[in-house]
């Protein structure tokens, strides 16, 4: 991202001219009555792509991207805190080289992770090639109803 110039209004921000601001103590908050604010705006949501499923996929993808950004920020906060507290030296994470045992375990975990993510393809193949796989769910229902 290009470095953003600070808005001029920051430098020229006025001091309130109407008198002293009121200070009110902040209470810890809470929502004792479980008030539920609306999440969905009233109106008709447009369909953007030829298949509405693509709209839903994009929705989910962007939300996941947001959560990934949150996680990265959180990890960075942890690194910064650990560096501040002198638990880690600055740059320790980037210069870390995993010993063979750790790298081996990581590789196995990574493979399992990829397999879980890719299971949709694997599942389709397994279903297609299994010799006694039922042709339809109706066949299964008929079989167990006998």
């Amino acid at each position, binding site marked *: *991202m*290009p470095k*953003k*110039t*600070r*808005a*001029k*209004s*920051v430098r020229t*921000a*006025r001091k*309130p*001219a*109407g*008198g*002293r*601001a*009121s*200070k*009110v103590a*902040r*209470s*810890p*908050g*809470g*929502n*004792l*009555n479980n*008030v*539920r*604010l*609306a*999440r*969905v*705006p*009233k*109106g*008709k*949501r*447009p369909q*953007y*792509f030829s298949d509405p499923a693509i*709209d839903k996929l*994009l*929705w989910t993808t*962007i*939300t996941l*991207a*947001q959560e990934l*950004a*949150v996680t990265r*920020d*959180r990890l960075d*906060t942890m690194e910064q805190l650990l560096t501040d507290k002198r638990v880690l030296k600055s740059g320790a994470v980037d210069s870390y080289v995993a010993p063979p045992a750790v790298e081996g375990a990581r590789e196995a975990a990574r493979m399992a992770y990829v397999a879980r993510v890719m299971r949709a393809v694997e599942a389709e193949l397994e279903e297609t090639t299994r010799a006694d796989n039922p042709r339809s769910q109706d066949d299964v229902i008929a079989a167990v109803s006998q």
Partner: protein
Amino acid sequence: MSHFNRHAMLPDLDHDEKARQSFVKSLRGHLASRVMPGNYQVYASRVEPQFKAETGRAPADQHEVRKIMEKDSYYQYWSAMQRRSQELLWESVIEPTERQIDSLIERSKALSKKAVKGRKKGTLRLDPALKVPRYHTAADIHLQPGGYHTDFTADDVTAGVIYDNGIYIYLNGALGPENNTMGDLLVGFFKETFAGRKPARILDMGCAIGNSTLQWARAFPHSEVHAIDVGAPVLRYAHARAEALGVPAHFSQQNAEKTDFPDASFDLVISHIMLHETSKTAIVNIMRECHRVLKPGGIMLHLEIPRGKTPMEKFMFNWESYNNNETFAQYMTDLDLKAVAVKGGFDPATTEAVEYAPRMTQEQKNYSEEFFWKIVVGRR
């Protein structure tokens, strides 16, 4: 990005809530500066040429542009992302607000009651019998769930909390540390155009959270500043926010089409991007009401957003109408605002709709090149 002034009426944000809002800001900044301009490029390089090849002419208006652009994959992707970014924006503010709703309401009550030595306090007057107009209830404007007007609980202020935080993220802080830029801009225009005038009584219509209202109260500390809106929760918030910032203003729940202020009771009537959230009949009623409440010699100023000049620009500006529930903006595009003011009783000889281009920061330019505002100026 400018630093948001976290006054007493804003919710606290934990680490992940902040990170979620930061993501929305970055996403929207990227969409606005790097992806959105590409729509003009694909229009010029493939969409318009194909239309010309098929029909032998250029698209006649924004509606024809829309028909062909909605089939373009680049536009579809940007548009879907832009919509999702707007939804995410509200979601990222709603969650921390909901989590702290009790203390936000408590704080607003305390600020309203608490006397402060050495300064006058503002007031709040609500009208539970006021009918919120259909142009606000038909669809939630710019997708804020519940709009400006929905009370989710007694003494609710959340619509205001959400709006204040949301519009800050909406323009990535370009509205200033207290969402003050539009108020400053119109104050600046007033001081340039009517040098030396000191209006004794000012009325701000469609004030929402009073972010622009307070800039008038600060610019003219000896004036009595009134502000109206149809939404109760935004007004409760506006009042508490004004008290938290130490600027007195008088908020009341009223429809700008018909207020309870006496004839000839204001020196200046203003609004900040309100007109495009009204309706065809309301906009004339509002002009008539401005004319009625102004004293002889009084001034009316309405700040509005431009809606493009070419068919492609008009189509792009009106993305907001079709995708962000700024529904009346579509009709406003080709509306002669001077004619509307004249219909409301203003003298054609002294009424004008001017284009005003203030100097912009780079951050503001990221959102629109050669941005100018429209200002309707009426004299009683």
